[in-house]
């Protein structure tokens, strides 16, 4: 009997001990805020390593925050994973996602505006420190939902050797649509061995089209994401011009031009000019065997390009501590010196004037002036196409562009149809 009591007591003591230990460990774990973050990579290069390095630096500076940064594929995959995690009840606290996912995320009630998180005056000033053009895709309804991180614009890459061979001034890139066509005609060789120019029309046709329409002084949608201007005369004119480059002026191949192989076409000298994301800059710089130039896109009524790329979002299902920690992380990742480092390593642009004012980026731009073209072009930039039902609206526009370029429909008919589709999709949001 006695033995048994003693044994029981021992057992109870052991159990108590273990419970105490478990409690202690939980308490310790609670002291550390854990953050999960998804991020996409949409261009080539060792970007995951760069992000991991930045995260490691952040954890060193903030030992009380544990960041679990997960590479989630391209923009589409990142959104799918983040939303799936949200539904499964184990959500991420913040993520880098496509800037144009904004309305979808709002509609899913997945994210919170940064206005709810910034408190101090210093933080409010921080919110205003980015290039306003880059904020366009992150602001709607008077609130800021996305903070720019990996951002780009479209720029014009051109082959200076080909320009020289065609008797053109290699230091003067075409600055208007007329000049573009005129140079294109000189650059296009009759035997088909070299085209004047290529604008990609698969993958992200709507993005390239956003540049052409902006150059024609027309935006594609309103700021609330509820209306599109697909059948506006200037939009139709822009598509007609795109099509004419191939069918009328014969300076570009007819049909669609593949996004994925365009860079190779340019590097192999098959085209003298290409329009592409700044995200390709570092690769082109490394691989081009000829002298190349980078310039702003040409103007018709004005210069213009859409911005592109990914923003930081904070999710709604987060505690106050997690939000504070997430803010710390975002502020760290978007700080001028980090942004400068990120820009030099990738070709993405610095996201604030302060980033370009850092010594290292100033130095880099001095040695390689093309790194600043994207920034200078920001003065003429507009938001990337983003609306409610953005996937459907975007696809409808993509289809219309491709139908026009392949000659299946006239630009006017294709865009009228698309506008009708978009109106039907967006009606209930107005």
């Amino acid at each position, binding site marked *: 009997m006695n033995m048994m009591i003693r044994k029981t007591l021992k057992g109870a003591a052991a159990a108590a001990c273990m419970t105490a230990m478990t409690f202690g460990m939980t308490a310790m774990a609670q002291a550390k805020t854990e953050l999960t973050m998804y991020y996409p990579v949409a261009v080539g290069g060792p970007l995951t390593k760069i992000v991991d390095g930045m995260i490691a630096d952040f954890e060193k500076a903030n030992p009380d925050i544990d960041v679990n940064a997960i590479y989630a594929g391209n923009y*589409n995959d990142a959104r*799918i994973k983040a*939303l799936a995690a949200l539904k499964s009840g184990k959500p991420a606290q913040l993520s880098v996602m496509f800037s144009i996912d904004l309305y*979808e995320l709002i*509609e*899913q*009630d*997945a994210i919170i505006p940064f206005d709810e998180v910034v408190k101090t005056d210093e933080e409010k000033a921080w919110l205003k420190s980015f290039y306003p053009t880059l904020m366009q895709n992150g602001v709607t309804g008077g609130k800021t939902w996305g903070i720019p991180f990996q951002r780009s614009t479209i720029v014009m890459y051109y082959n200076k050797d080909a320009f020289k061979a065609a008797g053109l001034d290699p230091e003067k890139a075409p600055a208007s649509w007329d000049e573009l066509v005129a140079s294109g005609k000189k650059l296009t060789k009759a035997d*088909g*061995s070299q085209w004047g120019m290529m604008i990609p*029309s*698969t*993958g992200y046709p709507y993005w390239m089209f956003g540049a052409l329409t902006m150059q024609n002084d027309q935006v594609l949608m309103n700021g609330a994401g509820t209306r599109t201007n697909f059948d506006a005369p200037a939009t139709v004119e822009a598509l007609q011009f795109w099509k004419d480059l191939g069918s009328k002026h014969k300076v570009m*191949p*007819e*049909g*669609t*031009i*593949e996004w*994925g*192989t365009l860079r*190779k*076409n340019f590097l*192999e000298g*098959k085209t003298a000019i290409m329009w592409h994301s700044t995200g390709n800059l570092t690769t082109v710089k490394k691989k081009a065997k000829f002298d190349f130039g980078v310039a702003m896109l040409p103007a018709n009524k004005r210069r213009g390009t859409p911005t592109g790329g990914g923003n930081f979002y904070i999710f709604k299902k987060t505690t106050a501590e997690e939000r504070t920690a997430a803010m710390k992380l975002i502020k760290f990742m978007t700080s001028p010196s980090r942004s400068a480092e990120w820009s030099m390593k990738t070709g993405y642009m610095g996201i604030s004037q302060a980033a370009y004012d850092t010594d290292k980026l100033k130095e880099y731009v001095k040695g390689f002036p093309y790194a600043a073209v994207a920034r200078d072009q920001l003065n003429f930039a507009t938001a990337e196409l983003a609306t409610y*039902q953005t*996937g*459907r609206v975007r*696809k409808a526009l*993509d*289809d*219309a562009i*491709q*139908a026009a*370029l*392949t000659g*299946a429909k006239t630009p006017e008919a294709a865009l009228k149809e698309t506008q009708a589709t978009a109106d039907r999709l967006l009606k209930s949001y107005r």
Partner: protein
Amino acid sequence: MRLSQDQMKHVHGWLLLTPAAILLVSFTHYPTVATLINSFFSKGTAIRPSRFIGFDNYRSMAEDPIFWKVLGNNLWFALGTIPTSIALAIAMALLVNRAMPGRSFVRMAYFTPTILPMIAVANIWLFFYTPDIGLIDKVLGWFGFAGHNWLGDPSTVLPAIIIMTVWKEAGFFMIFYLAALQNIPPELGEAARLEGANRWYFFRRVLFPLLMPTTLFVLINAVLNSFKLVDHLFVLTKGGPDNASNLLLYYIFESAFSFFDTPYAATLTVVLLGLLAAMALVQFFVLDRRIHYR
């Protein structure tokens, strides 16, 4: 209480069945039923919760021109890939079933495309098809043909994808035919030769009928693949230009993950499931009866 011998047998049976049943139910039957149920509900958002809308999704599907386009594409894709890859597989199997120098090398060469992941294959072919600088245009260039934008032209994009798929699939089917051919007793061939049958006659009257069970198996696989394989679209065309190469499953993916319209994706999936089930039934009940099993 003791269970009788008979009852014990039942318990045993069910226990043996349980692991497979759990997997089947959770990964096959439950998703199928859930998909069917989903297709009767509207798209839910935080502001407007999902509600029952009956056949509305099916109605809007019937009015969706892209749906009919992708369905048509899929039928052409099936028609283009299945007979060709089967014929090619038989031809290749007959070829490498004979004694010839470098036989294992040829067998391996035929089988290699199968080993490669579809995404890798698509990446390779993307550069084959690239206008002017691609392999195909370079070779055509030697004979004086001008370059063609294979994937950028709505009239050539689907055939281009069909050719790539045949290249990828034929080697896989060849393996089955090769195995089947090696099971056919050589006496049949000797007897046919004695009777004076020519090789075509022998193939048509003896070999091909004996290969029918394999053909049925391959046919089912080929049909499934023609609806199931869309990996290459992600790399090659994303369904473009203007949906000229879009297939049903890719459209389902777009609806679900690009448009976030899961109910519509569910509706399309129900159609896909129905199509596949119907085809499997036809194959099993109609073709199976005409096949000679030894």
